[in-house]
């Protein structure tokens, strides 16, 4: 039985109309998100005379002077501090969290579900609560106003996420590979380091970027725990009280650039990890 395919004219119109509507909606969404980024970059580099001219929307003369001023005020040191804190946070949270992620992915044990639920619940805990009391403790331990102190607090914030992500990634590596390793004489630790870890490495690298972003963006804890050795968001937060407009623009600029790099490098993984950890 053969069916004749009839295409009505109205169907063709509908088809193209649908395409146009979809394209229109996507354009609106992308513009809404991207335009503020673009305008921030443009105005942060804009010549002040042109910026203050209401008739000029897009300036034609650009300058690095505002960025330079911000760097003179200490933005460069703050950026270095932020990188150090974020890298320490990755090291600590992976050293502590990776074994737990492995346990959740590979073992069946009593209390596993409650423990996992506990970790899931922890991720919702408002971590800013720990900042003030932690500072009291840090004064006693000599950790107040140190990058190490901020990194330790950020580790507590990142740990639940690291565990959930790493257990997801390790569960994605077939356990048979590891068992094959065991058959050929590796012990469990050897099998992990020589088989599972290399296979999980790309995912773990993306998880590291995810952790980096969490620490890099955290401001409340960092601002409470530090006075001189500030991370970039804490430094900017503290600076903008009496700052000129252009210093604020430059602050936005300096914080936006790394974000573009993160998404460019690991966009695909980031979407997936937010999907995992926030569900």
């Amino acid at each position: 039985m053969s069916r004749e395919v009839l295409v009505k004219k109205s169907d063709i119109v509908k088809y193209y109309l649908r395409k146009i509507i979809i394209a229109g909606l996507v354009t609106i969404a992308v513009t809404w998100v991207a335009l503020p980024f673009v305008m921030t970059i443009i105005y942060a580099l804009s010549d002040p005379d042109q910026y203050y001219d209401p008739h000029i929307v897009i300036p034609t003369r650009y300058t690095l002077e505002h960025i330079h001023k911000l760097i003179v005020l200490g933005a460069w040191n703050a950026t270095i501090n932020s990188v150090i804190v974020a890298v320490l946070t990755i090291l600590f949270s992976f050293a502590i969290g990776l074994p737990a992620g492995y346990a959740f992915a590979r073992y069946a044990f009593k209390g596993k579900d409650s423990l996992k639920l506990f970790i899931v619940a922890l991720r919702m805990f408002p971590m800013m609560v720990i900042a003030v009391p932690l500072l009291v403790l840090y004064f006693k331990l000599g950790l107040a106003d140190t990058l190490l102190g901020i990194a330790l607090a950020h580790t507590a914030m990142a740990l639940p996420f690291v565990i959930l992500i790493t257990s997801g990634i390790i569960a994605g590596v077939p356990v048979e590979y590891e068992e094959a390793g065991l058959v050929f004489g590796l012990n469990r630790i050897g099998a992990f380091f020589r088989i599972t870890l290399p296979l999980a490495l790309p995912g773990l690298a993306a998880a590291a970027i995810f952790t980096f972003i969490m620490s890099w963006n955290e401001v409340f804890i960092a601002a409470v725990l530090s006075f001189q050795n500030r991370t970039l968001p804490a430094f900017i937060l503290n600076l903008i009280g009496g700052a000129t407009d252009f210093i604020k623009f430059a602050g936005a600029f300096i914080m936006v650039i790394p974000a573009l790099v993160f998404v460019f490098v690991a966009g695909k993984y980031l979407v997936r990890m937010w999907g995992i950890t926030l569900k």
Partner: protein
Amino acid sequence: MPNEEIPTSVKLSKYTPYFLILPTLAYMIFFIGYPLVQGIMLAFFDEQGRFTLENVNYLLYGPGSLFWDALKYTILLAAVIIPIQVSIAFGLALLFNLRFPGKNAALYTVILPLTISDVAAGLIWYVMLGQYGFFNKILMNLGIISHPIIFFGIKDMEFIAIVITEIWRATAIVFIIIYAGLQMISHEYYEAAEVFGATTWQRFRYIVFPLLLPSLQAALIIRTLFAFQIFGVVWTLAGRDIPVLAGEAYYAQTELLRPGVASLYALIIAGLSIAVGALYIKFFKAKYLEAGM
């Protein structure tokens, strides 16, 4: 076999997962449990360890106390922002579930605000909405307005600026959760619906919506809890013009130098989060937890 001994290594390996999780538990108990207890001590006890309501009094009646305003604005902002975010995110997720050219690039653009700090987001919209910002310039040059709209320095306008910024910044989190949920819906359901001649609306109402409910609930919980911690955006755009709980905690700590009051504010945020979290879980019967982690 009764006389066959279980090797010690096997006996030990029963405990291996606990050994692996122990460092995490120890760390979290120390870094959350200890500060929580210490926070309660700071808020309710004086230096000699005697119970005191001094901090509570200061929080409520101290000079320049904005506690009730902060509580009001924190809840008001959440109540205004979250329904808009969930609606936009839901529509956006349905849109991105369709096939269209350039989808990946569009997806990565939409998640961009998630990779910046709330301080940066606040500053970005300070650039956009300033007197000489893009928003005013474009409207004036198009002849839609003759004078710039002033956002900063006027309370109600600052409130609007915060709402815009938060919608711009955090809708993506809700979007990603719903989008992930949408992608997990098997295509077989759609095919079955097609066989039975379901309309688009019926497909949405009887397949997409019920299967998406757990993701929607999860998104709602996460967004609400984060909304109580709103700080960076408010602090950069409005300072204390629009007081919020976290902002007052920061102010009490860094300007008033009263850690007891700051701790009290933080504990109120924690209490509010726990109460609302418990309420949601009770209301949704913890369904979101069954939907696979």
